[in-house]
């Protein structure tokens, strides 16, 4: 049951609905009555440069679900590219498409994956499926910017499998869409490390959903998660994080944090940080807060003569900044920071 399988079979009953507990806040079946027609090929000549072009050794582009160059899985061996820009560009209007890609990292290699989901059309339905495998000791840093059209429905799902001692670090930043969901399902290897961070900045009637499931099956793996969000107008942010520690996964250390600011009367945040634990030698925790900007901090800034809108902007930027600062890749971090600042300013 997924958007992908509904697009493949043409059967709306395959769409996840509110009755599926993992989709209760992002109901697709209630939204999509009939599945739209398949998207035509896009116009490659109309492609604008991607935000990460200057940082990448290589660019892989999907236009309306079609890959523009190359085929088959991307395999990163010791002598392959170190930084890849991965672009999913949606030029469609009222149509649907599906993109899929496998990425495999051979043992010990290091890759930076700079991913963008770009909306250049309207009212489209886009589905992305990624399959990412990290060999023993491999390291992957994934930074994702999601910029879909206001009236788009977009779902991106990544299945991630980590070999032993592998290190996976991800930061996803989204501004939502009519419905937008970014899902990561990760299976740990022995003593592997994962960082799954997220930011959602939602305004208007946009909705954004950051969902993750992390499974610990082996000894000594660690998971750290920090997601922060700001919602205003009538936007709605969703965070769902599940950490499963199966029997035998002793020595697991898992920490999850989700913090959100509600900046307007009619905005909404729904969150479900979940722990499912079947092993006893573990240390797991989660923290979750939802609230408004700190009145005391606002007062302090007002006292210093900073106008209210500017003070709010600064505080919000600082709030989200904590997540952005965790991006290791300097160039990507700067772009992510600018991306956040621009979207926060646009909202004011």
């Amino acid at each position, binding site marked *: 049951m997924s958007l992908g399988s509904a697009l493949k079979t043409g059967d709306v009953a395959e769409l996840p609905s509110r009755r599926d507990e993992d989709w209760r806040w992002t109901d697709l079946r209630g939204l999509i009555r009939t599945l739209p027609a398949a998207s035509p090929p896009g116009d490659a000549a109309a492609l604008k440069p991607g935000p990460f072009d200057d940082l990448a050794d290589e660019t892989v582009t999907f236009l309306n679900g079609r890959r523009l160059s190359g085929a088959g899985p991307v395999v990163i061996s010791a002598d392959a590219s170190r930084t890849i820009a991965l672009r999913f560009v949606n030029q469609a209007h009222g149509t649907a498409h599906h993109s899929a890609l496998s990425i495999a990292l051979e043992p010990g290699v290091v890759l930076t994956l700079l991913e963008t989901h770009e909306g250049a059309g309207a009212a489209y339905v886009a589905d992305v499926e990624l399959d990412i495998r990290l060999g023993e000791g491999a390291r992957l840093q994934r930074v994702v910017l999601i910029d879909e059209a206001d009236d788009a429905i977009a779902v991106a799902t990544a299945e991630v499998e980590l070999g032993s001692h592998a290190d996976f670090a991800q930061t996803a930043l989204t501004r939502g869409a009519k419905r937008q969901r970014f899902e990561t399902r990760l299976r740990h290897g022995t003593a592997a490390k994962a960082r799954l961070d997220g930011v959602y900045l939602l305004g208007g009637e946009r909705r954004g959903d950051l969902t993750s499931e992390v499974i610990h099956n082996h000894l000594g793996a660690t998971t750290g998660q920090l997601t922060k969000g700001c919602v205003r107008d009538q936007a709605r942010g969703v965070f769902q994080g599940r950490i499963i520690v199966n029997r035998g996964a002793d020595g697991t250390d898992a920490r999850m944090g989700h913090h959100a600011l509600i900046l307007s009367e009619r905005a909404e945040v729904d969150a*479900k940080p979940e722990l499912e634990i079947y092993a006893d030698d573990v240390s797991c925790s989660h923290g*979750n807060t*939802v609230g408004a900007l700190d009145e005391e901090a606002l007062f302090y800034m007002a006292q210093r003569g900073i106008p209210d809108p500017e003070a709010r902007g600064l505080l919000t930027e600082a709030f989200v900044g904590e997540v952005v600062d965790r991006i290791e890749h300097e160039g990507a971090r700067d772009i992510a920071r600018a991306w956040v600042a621009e979207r926060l300013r646009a909202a004011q």
Partner: protein
Amino acid sequence: MAAVKQTVDQVEALEAYKHGFVTTLDQEFAPKGLNADTVRFISAKKDEPDWMLQWRLEAFERWLALEEPHWAKIHHAPIDYQDSYYYAAPKTKAGPMSLDDVDPEVLATYAKLGIPLREQEVLAGVQGAPKYAVDAVFDSVSVVTTFKAELAKVGVIFCSMSEAIREHGDLVRQYLGSVVPVSDNYFACLNSAVFSDGSFVYVPPGVRCPMELSTYFRINAAESGQFERTLIIADKGAYVSYLEGCTAPMRDENQLHAAVVELIALDDAEIKYSTVQNWYPGDAQGKGGIYNFVTKRGDCRGDRSKVSWTQVETGSAITWKYPSCILRGDGSSGEFYSIAVTNNRQQADTGTKMIHLGRDTRSRIISKGISAGGSSNTYRGLVSAHPKAANARNFTQCDSLLIGKSCAAHTVPYIEARNATARLEHEATTTRLSEEQLFYVMQRGLSQEDAVALLVNGFVREVLQELPMEFAVEAQKLVAISLEGSVG
């Protein structure tokens, strides 16, 4: 020799489940199985007015259309709802009874359980000891309610539900099902059709109930279910503290206990509801035990009202319950303090819902889960702040403690914030019993079992403090007994 006696007592007290005896007595049953006639039988047995029968029959119709929910993290063989008795009661003479009319076997049972049914017995202890009134429910009927006269002097109504339906029909009709609607969920709907007895409390405006009220539920009959219904109304400015205790015999079969508890607090009223749930948990292999599928909800209907739930859950093969608060009145507040202990093959899926509807509403959730043996313990909760709940505040803390390699602990909190001035905070931790602490305590000469009990007591202390004194001592012992044999 006193020391030897004390040791013997202690060993006896530590026997896994000391309430597991069966009382042999003459009982009457409804015919086995469940259909509209069963519902009519129960209603007729209780001499109910017609509106009550119609209410039950309607609930039964709706129940037939519902499906058993499966979203909780619990596993059990399908329940055969036709293979059970829905009414079981000790045979008695007709009419209202005094304590002298109650079957001596029933009285002996309560004596054995340590529940004072004779008012003078309560007074016989230390001078100045606090009084508490008891409503004793044995299978499907309330056998006796104590201190009724003394409570009536201040206008407090404390009686069995059956009596309330007969004597205070208007109050019951006004409030019954107003917090937990008939078809709220599968088990609440079943309860609405076949509920037998339970307690009814009404505290009039401005009255502070002069003593603790309590109900003691005992399942005795085999192959039967217990479906009690409790309704507590605190009128404007009233206060009441209510305690609930429960036990059942040790049997190989699984018995269903599907209760509904409704609390209504009007303006400035406060209800404190404490439970020590000690139903038979089944044996170490998971055979037998009670299925405790309960719906408990408090409605803070009035401004500045308060509902506080405290629960100590040590028993039952399966626990499935979420005592909740609907914070409707402006400035109302809800509290939920919980200790859930599971051992062997027990499964618990429990937590709370705090629904913030009114302005300036506050809620606080402290949940301590302890899993040992091969058991599974889930905290499941919902905190929601609606658009009108300006300045709503919630603080939630859920801690889970794991003892042993094959137990499980889960935390599933839902948060829905639809208000810019609401502040909701949640934190949760899951860890195992610290080896360092254990080592330290054992170094001081405590046995491993005592050391575990001591550390666990420290872990749950915050919740124990919320219990009325007499219950706190009992609960502390229960927690220790429940974890018996879980280490080493």
